[in-house]
């Protein structure tokens, strides 16, 4: 009873609160990092160095008037932010944050579920998230959001193909779809997959940027062109949900990339015994560190690069990434059979 109901529910509660807190503070991190890049200070007023800023933001957004445009499709308008938030949160269910640890004398695994289709689960759940943007664009009954909705759907479908193609070549190498299994495979093969599958890594990263609507692929929200895109008509907490979903997706993509390519919770060079002193750092800290590096790069890219144009984005997806993905898959499969 305890093992099948209480422990998973406890884990879900802990993970959800941790993720929500992380997402909230990610907004501060992004503002701070971009500010430092741009020789500014960023938020400084609320708390020392602005550390309480996310809380002030949350309170402000909660207290704001929540406007639904009178000609909007009311139900869909309400549904859209929820639809974009939920998939981002449930994707965390299969991400392994660390190996099994012992807590209060019980072995506790640092993931909620290890299903044998873990990787596919993440891909499919995140593919649901796009509905939030499309429906928001449609239901606002406004032209800029509509354009953004169309951009989003085209972009997400195109990039999902390239990303999935990469994941398939990774699965060919690992021989399993389970997230825990993939990390263990990296341990037994003694190498992080970023070294075995560099092409897949780069394309997955680019595709991840595109799928999370991050710069330079933030076309659906492009404030300079579409005045904020799909969330133009949103206000208050519903607007905040879109933002939280974007940041949650960023964490998901970073965590998945860490698990698949950087050995998840494994320490660097897991098979080199000289470095075994690194083992005193718990696995989950390694995992968080690696994820943080990805998130930092996401923010860094946003501060540096201009934005792609819609047609260029599609061209990059269909004419560069997808053919590269197929080629990579074929080469991987041939090598796998030969070796």
């Amino acid at each position: 009873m305890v093992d099948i109901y209480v422990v998973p529910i406890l884990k879900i509660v802990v993970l959800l609160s941790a993720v929500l807190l992380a997402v909230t503070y990610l907004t501060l991190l992004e503002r701070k990092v971009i500010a430092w890049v741009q020789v500014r200070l960023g938020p400084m007023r609320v708390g020392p160095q602005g550390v309480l800023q996310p809380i002030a933001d949350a309170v402000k957004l909660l207290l704001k008037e929540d406007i639904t445009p009178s000609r909007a499709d009311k139900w869909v308008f309400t549904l859209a932010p929820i639809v974009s938030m939920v998939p981002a949160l449930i994707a965390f269910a299969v991400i392994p944050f660390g190996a099994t640890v012992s807590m209060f004398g019980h072995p506790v695994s640092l993931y909620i579920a290890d299903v044998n289709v873990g990787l596919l689960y993440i891909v499919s759940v995140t593919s649901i998230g796009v509905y939030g943007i499309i429906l928001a664009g449609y239901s606002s009954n406004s032209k800029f959001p509509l354009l953004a909705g169309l951009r989003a759907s085209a972009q997400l479908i195109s990039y999902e193909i390239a990303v999935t193609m990469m994941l398939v070549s990774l699965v060919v190498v690992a021989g399993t779809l389970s997230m825990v299994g993939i990390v263990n495979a990296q341990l037994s093969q003694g190498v992080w997959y970023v070294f075995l599958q560099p092409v897949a890594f780069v394309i997955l990263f680019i595709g991840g940027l595109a799928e999370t609507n991050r710069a330079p692929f933030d076309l659906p929200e492009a404030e300079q062109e579409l005045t904020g895109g799909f969330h133009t008509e949103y206000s208050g907490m519903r607007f905040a949900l879109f933002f939280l979903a974007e940041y949650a997706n960023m964490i998901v993509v970073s965590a998945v990339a860490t698990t698949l390519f950087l050995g998840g919770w494994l320490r660097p060079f897991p098979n080199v015994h000289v470095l075994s002193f690194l083992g005193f750092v718990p696995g989950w800290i390694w995992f968080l560190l690696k994820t943080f590096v990805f998130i930092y790069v996401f923010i860094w890219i946003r501060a540096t690069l201009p934005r792609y144009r819609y047609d260029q984005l599609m061209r990059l997806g269909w004419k560069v990434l997808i053919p590269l993905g197929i080629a990579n898959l074929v080469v991987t499969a041939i090598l796998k059979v030969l070796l």
Partner: protein
Amino acid sequence: MFDTNELVINMGPQHPSTHGVLRVILRLDGERVIGSDVVIGYLHRGVEKLCEHRDWAQIVLITDRMDYVAAASNNLGYVETVEKLMSIEVPRRARYIRTILAELQRIASHCLWLGTHAMDIGAMTVFLYAFRERELVLDLFEEYCGARLTYNAMRVGGLPLDIPPGWDRKVRDFCDILGPKVDEYEQLLTHNRIWLERTRGVGVIPGEDAVAIGLSGPPLRGSGIPRDVRKDEPYAAYAEFDFDIPIGAAGDTYDRYLVRIEEFRQSVRIIRQALDGLPEGPILGKVPRLIKPPAGETYHAIEAPKGELGYFIASDGKSNTPYRFRVRPPSFCNLQALSRLIKGHLVADVVALIGSLDIVLGEVDR
């Protein structure tokens, strides 16, 4: 089976990338612009009429309010027109300082253009970097005349103020700072693949079309026409300095960008020469107590940061006010090209093209 409709979208007057209150009505096929209508006039204050009811000295501060990011250039154009009308000789020192102010103003204006243009295309860091340097120019202006935006920095016949002690040293320091900063902007943009894809081949104006539309300034020079009032009809002290006129080849957004970036460097060159050769002497010529030009009319143009800024002034010789006051604002004339440029491009290019023409609505609407 299905019919598809055009989407008519109203970009502006409240839109983050129309640089003020420009309104562009776009007819879209998907995201492609098939037609557009540029609506102006939201900032119309009747500046020209207003000037016909102010005496000649008061007009200087009204000209500040036209192109409010390049107020000194507006002042310069006006006072030189009146001087031409009255045949006033301006002392050499005043002409040198005017040149320095005009070139500093060009740098400030181009900083604002670069920041907003890059921001429109999505590179937001460049925006803050460019504003950082603009701030330095504004500090220099503040030290010279006390104001940071609308300077009222010139008088008919010369200047109201001599430069404060040590100011030339600071301008020199600024020139030393700016060069590496321009290289920094270029590092972020010039060879950036995304920037190249977003600007190359976007909004091409061939040279003869640019002349036919009546473009001036960087948009004209970007199309390969080496027309610059500073060289062709030198005013202030430009005839005494050595500088180049950068021109583009293809006439696209990228060339206009390169031209303006090069103009940063040329401006620094001019300022350095002016500081080196700054003569001693008075700063105000022989001007009557009451400025009252003789009957007649004249047209005089200068090279403002955004293009050829011309003033046509007619005086009846009797009243204390101009009889007719007319401005040829570069932004207004350059904006004519917009409708034609954006046709066939995507929505994302529209904002890039508005940025590349570098308009200020205060000047377009007057």
